[in-house]
């Protein structure tokens, strides 16, 4: 009889690791409603009218930053944005000082991307604001994993029981770890595929299958999530040449058409066309890359809205 009052189990969104399966379902159900809002003539709701959010990006970003900013604006939050490259960080200010100065301007939530793993967790222990991790080094990128799983759910109706192959630079990818945790919590089977040098040594302990043959991985999966080679995080050379990588692990139309079933192709962006995925695959009917971007706004609205409900 009483209305339901669901709530996230966590005050910050630092990683998928901290979320329960119920949390993820709640985020999805809320995102369904926000997706409906985004398809209306007036795409804005006043939910976060009195909340101020700082977007702090210590690393470059296009999609995530724009997507968060748009989500915040659609929720009527006040936003300030900050890019480390154009700030006093280059003058030697520490992370805590930078953030505390921003909080002194009465900011309620911080959306942060940082090149070091655990930066979000560190911040959440030292400053009085809610932290949303928008990517910390090669650790986690929770909203990306949520929108990926949400897109799979949208395409197939359910994530449970689906087979998802994550293909490419697993070692340097925060998308890979968050995706593995999120998909497993939702009951999907996960496989990682890439050259031995780009697969972390003990990844099997997470309960994922490991495959080094692209064709075998594609034949196994329902969904292939293609990752970019993160050259900016590679301090040494992990494979002889990009050309060789493309020949062994690049997804092209020929391979896709040779499979005995129709799989769905995903990519978190940015795409290096012609490296991990060719243009005709990225733009094909089997690709849901742009749906992922569209869903990203709804998912981020849901996350911010549900976290804001945690403040009271």
């Amino acid at each position, binding site marked *: *009889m009483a*209305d*339901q*009052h*669901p*709530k996230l189990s966590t005050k910050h969104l630092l990683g998928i690791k901290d979320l329960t399966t119920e949390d993820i379902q709640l985020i999805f*159900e*809320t995102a369904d*409603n*926000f997706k*409906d*809002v985004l398809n*209306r*003539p*007036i795409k*804005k*709701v*006043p*939910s*976060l009218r*009195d*909340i101020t959010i700082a977007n702090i990006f210590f690393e470059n970003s296009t999609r995530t930053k724009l997507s968060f900013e748009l989500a915040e604006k659609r*929720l009527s939050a006040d936003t300030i944005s900050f890019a480390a490259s154009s700030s006093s960080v280059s003058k030697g200010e520490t992370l805590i000082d930078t953030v505390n100065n921003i909080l002194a301007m009465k900011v309620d939530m911080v959306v942060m991307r940082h090149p070091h793993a655990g930066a979000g967790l560190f911040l959440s222990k030292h400053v009085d604001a809610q932290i949303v991790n928008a990517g910390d080094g090669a650790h986690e990128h929770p909203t990306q994993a949520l929108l990926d799983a949400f897109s799979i759910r949208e395409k197939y109706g359910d994530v449970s029981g689906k087979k998802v192959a994550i293909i490419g630079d697993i070692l340097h990818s925060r998308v890979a770890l968050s995706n593995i945790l999120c998909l497993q919590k939702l009951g999907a089977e996960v496989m990682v595929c890439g050259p031995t040098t780009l697969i972390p040594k003990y990844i099997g302990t997470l309960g994922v299958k490991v495959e080094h043959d692209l064709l075998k991985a594609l034949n196994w999966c329902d969904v292939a999530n293609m990752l970019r080679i993160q050259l900016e995080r590679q301090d040494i050379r992990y494979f002889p040449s990009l050309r060789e990588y493309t020949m062994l692990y690049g997804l092209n139309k020929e391979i896709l058409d040779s499979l005995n079933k129709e799989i769905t192709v995903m990519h978190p962006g940015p795409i290096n066309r012609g490296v991990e995925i060719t243009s005709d695959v990225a733009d094909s009917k089997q690709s849901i890359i742009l749906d992922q971007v569209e869903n990203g706004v709804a998912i981020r609205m849901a996350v911010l*809205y*549900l976290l*804001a*409900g945690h*403040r*009271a």
Partner: protein
Amino acid sequence: MQKLTLLDGQKFQITIQRLCHQLIENHNDFSESAIVGIQPRGAYLAKRIGDELRRLQPKANILQGNLDITFFRDDIRTNKDLPQASATEIDFIVENKNVVLVDDVLWTGRTIRAALDALLAFGRPRKVELLVLVDRRFSRQLPIEPDYIGIQVDSVDSQKVLVSWEETDKKDQIILLSEK
């Protein structure tokens, strides 16, 4: 907990029928009007009203939808319990329509305030009216009054008015719950 049944059985049905006849008086064949139930519990009443109107006027095309107001509430920061959002289903054009908002219980008026905001996101209605099954008098926090009233109840804040529906709760009735 004390339970007092305010309305049930045949009287419940008569009340719904009376509300429908009052609506017909003002909206004729409903060609310029629409019924919009406020989610979650106003949607049950809106469906009843819609079905009854269709029975009374088989030829009329009665537009009916549901409106979710969760994201338009003003208590996200103060209410410890976040409400669960439900679906909004408005597959007609609200612009220039006479819209009848439908909810089960009118208490503080804050839900209706949020509903007006949510409704305006779909266009500019010519007129908006309010139909409620239960009007808890003398408890308004905003200048909002209903146009059509099922029953009026004098209650204090600690009491609760519950409307249950045959579809979900097995019985049509209105109950007043009092502590001790």
